[in-house]
């Protein structure tokens, strides 16, 4: 019984289904450590996902868990949070789920600044369905639907969320579980829509087609191409090309949270009645 994690796990379902070396496990553990650091109890916690490898995470977590339709986790989470604004609502999903089919919901959740924390596991591919390119697959990479090399340009997911109004945006990666834990903890504590983009390794689908089929090599490749936000501030655009900036990228505590704003609507309506 892994002592540190057992409280948040459905132990009878462990070991989990992710491939040996898959970064999703690293990210989920960082999230569980973050829950533990905040002493969050499982009764008041809901964890929601869409479809994909990452979206299998809630099944392993001992909380109120919901595995929904592809791309739509945030919509269910919005209903849960608005119905119970006093509870902790966390969404975890992958790059395809969150940014392709779920893109609209991502953008609007950022806009609303509803107090949900979303972890986007960005492994640059649709893993579960066999390695098709996603909106974050790098140009030139091979994928199941890009056998001649991907020409479909990728999002900068963190920039997208900042642009859409999210008030806590951070990027971490599977090379540092400790940093991820800190960034996630900050997001959980933040009142408003928090996004933590976690760069991850799918060596089975992405790596295998791109000469990085060893999980350790792929994690090192990801790590080597990250730059901390403090360092990045001193670098030129040329130096930053091809690098992923990691750390806390954006935090704004001035915007009103969505459920708080709606509470005022209720007060106005009930006063007028």
């Amino acid at each position, binding site marked *: 019984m892994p002592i540190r994690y057992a409280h948040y796990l459905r132990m009878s379902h462990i070991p989990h289904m992710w491939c040996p070396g898959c970064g999703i496990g690293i990210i989920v553990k960082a999230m569980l450590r973050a829950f533990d650091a905040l002493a969050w109890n499982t009764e008041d916690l809901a964890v929601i996902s869409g479809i994909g490898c990452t979206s299998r995470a809630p099944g392993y977590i001992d909380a*109120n868990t*919901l595995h*929904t339709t592809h791309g739509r986790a945030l*919509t269910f989470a919005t209903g849960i949070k608005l119905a119970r604004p006093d509870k902790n609502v966390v969404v975890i999903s992958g790059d395809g789920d969150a940014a392709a089919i779920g893109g609209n919901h991502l953008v609007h959740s950022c806009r609303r600044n509803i107090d949900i924390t979303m972890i986007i596991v960005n492994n640059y591919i649709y893993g579960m369905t066999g390695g098709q390119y996603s909106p974050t697959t790098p140009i030139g990479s091979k994928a199941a639907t890009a056998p001649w090399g991907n020409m479909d340009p990728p999002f900068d997911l963190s920039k997208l969320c900042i642009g859409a109004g999210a008030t806590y945006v951070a990027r971490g990666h599977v090379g540092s579980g400790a940093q991820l834990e800190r960034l996630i903890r900050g997001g959980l504590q933040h009142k408003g829509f928090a996004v933590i983009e976690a760069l991850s390794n799918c060596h089975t689908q992405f790596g295998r087609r791109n000469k990085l089929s060893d999980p350790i090599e792929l994690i090192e490749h990801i790590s080597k191409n990250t730059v901390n936000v403090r360092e990045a501030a001193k670098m030129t655009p040329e130096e930053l090309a091809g690098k992923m900036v990691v750390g806390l990228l954006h935090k704004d505590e001035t915007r009103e949270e969505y459920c708080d704003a709606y509470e005022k609507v209720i007060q106005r309506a009930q006063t007028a009645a």
Partner: protein
Amino acid sequence: MSHNGHKVVFWAGNQVVAEAAIAAGCRFFAGYPITPSSEIAHIMSKRLPMVGGRFIQMEDEIAAMGAVIGASLAGKKVMTATSGPGFSLKQENIGFACMVEAPCVVVNVMRGGPSTGLPTALGQADIMQARWGTHGDRAVIALTPAYLDEVYRETIRAFNLAERFRIPVYILIDEVIGHLSERVELPEPSEIVLEERPRPTVPPEKFLPYDSSAGDVPPIADYFTNYHFHMTGLNHDKTGFPTTNPTICQQEEERMIRKVEARIAEIEKYEQYRLDDAEIAVISFGSSARAAAVAVNTAREKGIKAGMFRLLTLWPFPSEAVRKLSERVKGIVIPEANLGQLIHVIAEYASRGCRLVGVNKVGGVPIYPSEVLAKIEELA
């Protein structure tokens, strides 16, 4: 104004739906603007915060369906409202609600045409979509009230059925019903009986979200009440976790259908108007049935023994009653604002000797009593 101690109002159909939902205990609405249902959203946006409920206009129809399911699992009575194009978009999440067995009410104020169609005109062309719109097998409850006092009562019944059967329940009206105004006598709150979903009687450590040992509708706990369970749209067993075991998948899918279809008597509702000695029957629902009623009366004045079988539940379809009716009448006229959907359902059950004739208008103009009468006279 009041009558017999009841408040009397003069409301449009969409307002009736909204007010009835609130009377039924609905405290969460998520929707998206779409003609001719938007007034339901307008009124819910105003009324819900007044009673401590919550309203949200989501970014699209799919999101609205997701949000109501989430709020339902968090313990609220929930509703969304849409029309044809939105109904099409919602199908995947409706299937999800069926699969996880989340109570919710979905109003479809039907409009004309496929695709964008005729947004401001009536249609009744979502009959088959209501039955088979989402992929996979599922049981369906679809209520089709036509007069506004029924719309009020049936909206409340929709919420009760959703709770009783842990299923999405449709209210299928159309643009005419949604927008016409009528005198409605509101029931007193004390006259309204509300149902709640079955909740667990066992402690959390013994709870399974799909435990059907005591009946086909498993008790369900609200989120955040210390019952930790998992729900997924994947085929699952009684623990809520995914399974690919063929026997369990078969059993659970059959249970989800049986939970409704074995209890049709509790659900089905129809009006038999002047049918006792009828030789020609009209089978219809919604605004077409309102016109058909006039046609039946005119036919009677002309000496034709006509009557109407009016569906208040479209699904489950009252196949037994329709079959029996078809055995004693010469023919059935089926006015529907589409190019023939209900007629095929009736044909499946009607006896061979009974002639079936449709009245089909899809130009956005309601079916006239004279058009129904013409077909009655043809059959007579």
